[in-house]
């Protein structure tokens, strides 16, 4: 399924560049993501994939270009930043659940503190999403008592409890063994089917093939090409993309 990029994208990156000291991690990157679109970003390690999606909720600050979310440009002015962040869910490679809280409390923290929901409503919403990621029975446990796959699903539920407009995934399965990878990918598939806008940094090419609307290949800080999966996997234009695909498929 190929979509045309509409005039008003949900996320727009325009000529984004970033340096860590003298090293340029992002080189003039542009990407437009429409509401409901699912983008997979792949590429060798150190190519700037994680940095790119971390610029979308400003966990990293870009130095040149524009990052626009739902019509609001992210810049040095941090006043509106927490308001933008509450609409952008983020899932990390290392889960980053809060170890001092139970799984349920992890999921309730954002809705209660940020959205001002009552604890009772937040609990109901948290249980709903813990059910959707298939771990409602783990609600009362602390993160350390869960397997890696369960922790990552709890982290996904925690983000979903904020009812975000987009979900960013930063290598969500890289710290997991194969059985757990499947648990997490199943949940991400469900999420995609529900129509969630998703940007996923991953090496799971099976997921890219079945779920993505477009697959972007990054190398040395640039998006080399960004194509629908059928064309990306069968007839990539760039030599570097071909080499990468031959290495990981």
């Amino acid at each position: 399924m190929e979509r045309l990029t509409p005039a008003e994208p949900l996320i727009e990156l325009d000529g984004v560049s970033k340096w860590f000291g003298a090293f340029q991690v992002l080189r003039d990157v542009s990407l437009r993501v429409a509401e409901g679109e699912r983008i997979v970003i792949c590429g060798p390690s150190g190519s700037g994939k994680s940095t790119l999606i971390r610029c979308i909720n400003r966990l990293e600050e870009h130095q040149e270009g524009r990052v626009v979310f739902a019509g609001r440009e992210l810049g040095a002015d941090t006043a509106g930043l927490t308001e933008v962040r509450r609409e952008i869910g983020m899932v990390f490679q290392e889960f980053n659940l809060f170890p001092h809280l139970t799984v349920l409390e992890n999921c309730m923290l954002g809705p209660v503190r940020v959205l001002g929901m009552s604890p009772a409503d937040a609990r109901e919403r948290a249980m709903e999403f813990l059910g959707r990621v298939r771990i409602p029975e783990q609600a009362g446990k602390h993160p350390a008592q869960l397997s890696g796959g369960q922790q990552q699903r709890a982290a996904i539920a925690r983000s979903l409890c904020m009812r975000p407009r987009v979900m960013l995934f930063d290598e969500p399965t890289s710290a997991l063994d194969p059985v757990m990878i499947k648990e997490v990918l199943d949940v991400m598939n469900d999420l995609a089917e529900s129509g969630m806008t998703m940007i996923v940094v991953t090496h799971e090419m099976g997921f890219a093939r079945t779920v993505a609307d477009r697959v972007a290949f990054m190398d040395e800080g640039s998006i080399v090409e960004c194509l629908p999966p059928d064309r990306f996997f069968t007839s990539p234009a760039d030599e570097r993309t071909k080499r990468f695909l031959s290495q990981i498929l």
Partner: protein
Amino acid sequence: MTDSPLAPSRPPPETRRNVRWWNAGWFDVLQFTVFVAALLGLAVSGAIGMGYNWQWYRVPEYLVRIVGGELLWGPLARGLLVTLELTGWSVLITLAIGLAAALLRLSDSLSGRFVAKAYVEAVRSTPLLIQVYLFYFVLGPILGLDRFWVGVLALSIFEGAFAGEVIRAGILSVRRGQWEAGASLGLSRRQLYRSVVLPQAVPLMLPPLTGIVISLIRNSAIVSVIAVFDLTTEARNIIAETFLSFEIWITVAVIYLAFTVALSIVAGRLEHHVRA
């Protein structure tokens, strides 16, 4: 939590059987008893050597007296009360200053970081005695503070620098991913500290903060140089009148010791409670 696989289990009996006589409990106690006896022997023989006239029977009246069926607190007891009051206020102000210094040093504000760093360096690099004099002779008259509050403020500002470093280290020990996860939920910096960072950092801070409170109790003795009627000042006054220097100083040391040890025990319990 009893079914938790992480709960520590008792060592199996076979390892407990390996305990040798030299690391058994009774041998520990014996070692300690010999050590204390040797110390006491040294002190007593020294006192006999200088012809010291022990008069322990005179000490209790300085703690508490019963006159006509009524309980009257002696000067040492009143001094202890002042010491505790001084320490209590100082602990509160120390923690407030420490938290402020830590947050300033971790803030994005350049001037805030500079002020906090300059404060910590200045306080740690000058003797406490000089700071107490500075407060008493310079700041006290300017701000119109009485001796007690000069003492509280001098102690708090001194210990606050150390508390600030402890709190800062505790906050920095919380992993970056925790900050990022909280921030991406949309938590403000204040909410991040309250709900995510401090609950994880405080249990780590408790042991060194207990050390700071204990050093506060000990350092409070130094306010005797500005004639605050604390335990140490009262002791000096009694000795000036009675020359009971051995008895009174030993008594005073035991009183300080009793309070700091009691505090350590309470802190140990608290720490256990917070971790569990």
